[in-house]
């Protein structure tokens, strides 16, 4: 794989989505996101394109609301 291929895959995010029916909007995922890619509001949450696929949010989420984008 060339360097260009790698950068292309890094910018292809977000790699995760947040299941709104399970999310409790505690913002823990956002606190462990190294690139501030997760925005949690009063009653909604979303992963932005800044996501770098580290997986911290998915590991953290106490209710397993964060899923991989297919």
């Amino acid at each position, binding site marked *: 794989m060339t360097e260009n291929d790698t950068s292309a895959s890094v910018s292809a995010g977000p790699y995760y989505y947040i299941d709104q029916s399970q999310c409790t909007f505690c913002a*823990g995922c956002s606190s462990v996101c190294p690139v501030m890619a997760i925005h949690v509001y009063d009653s909604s949450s979303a992963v932005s394109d800044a996501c770098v696929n580290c997986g911290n949010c998915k590991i953290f989420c106490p*209710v397993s609301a964060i899923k991989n984008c297919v």
Partner: protein
Amino acid sequence: MKTFDVVVAGGSIAGLYLGMKLARGGMSVCVIDRKRTIGVPVRCGEATGNLAELSRFFEPERSWIALEVEGCALHINDSLCFKKAIPEAGVLLYRDKLEQGLAHRAEKFGATIFLDTIVTGLHENHHGEWDGVAIEPGDIIKGRFIIGADGCESRIGQWAGITKPLSLGEVASTLEYHVESDYCNDGFLHFFMGSSIIAPGYLWVFPKGENLLKVGGGLYGCPGNTPKVKYFVDDFIERRMPRARRHSMITGCAPVTLSPRSLTKKNVLVVGDAARQLNPLTAGGIMNAFEAADLAADAVLGCGGDDRKLRAYSRQWAGNQRRQQKVYRLLRDMIVNSSDDEIAAMARRASRVFKGDVDRSKPFEVSMTQAAILAMSILPKALGHWRALVG
């Protein structure tokens, strides 16, 4: 565009207390929060210090207090390790009512509160100085000083370069249910530890008045290969209180690490969870937040517009509370690395030292012999962990 002396991002405990104190001190201040209602939802264990300790900061109202705690109990797996009545041990709050009460007082002193408002960044003027915050959609709220009291996400702190994102090892992942049950419902704070209950971390059963209980758990760190905190709390409730009715569930993230050495940069300060000012052992942060907000407010009120004088806040925090954080972090590391039997032995030794009822209105009276026995029993282990941390 609106202009204030101080812009506080985050309308929870630290933010609202700062709003109240700064407004009372004669400054124009606004508190911004993304929530639609102050204090809701509650994401907190709600146990904190006693009424005298709270009164150091403000006069608490009776309606903010669910009940006064009778004492504490520690269970290791299936056995009760100790149970001790402690007069004035602390209180269980209605945190939503406390925050709404603080907001009301802040507004009475002249503070402005903006709800349902999302801060998107620090705003820079033409000289490259931070002169306020940008909010959605495309507006600015200007302020001479900017305070980040925006919880463990700590966006303001990260934008200013004061704090970093938390690593998985620096957080406790927490979850709590409100349940109706008689289990351990005796006015005591019950803590449960041990590998058959939750590890590494602890589980709590707190009374909330009548037959309501708060049953929750916190896992130190978030290793990817162990079950999540929900598994441990669900399992505990199913085994110990199978007929309990669950009313609601909350989750949260508590930084269990040290606060940064510097809590300010130019005219920006961070306070509370945003500044990681929690107890790294218990993940408790209510009294710490008041303590820190009090120091921060004094620094802002006393700096006379000179940003460099704000550093007094970092120095004062580091001189006392940050040192305490180090001790609690050491204790936590010891507990995480100890077997159930070792934790039980340590707890029993400690409970023997504090024989009888503990009176919190007076200093602890510990005889030299007892203190020496306790120190000798935990010192070698403490030194070992200290070396591991330093080395």
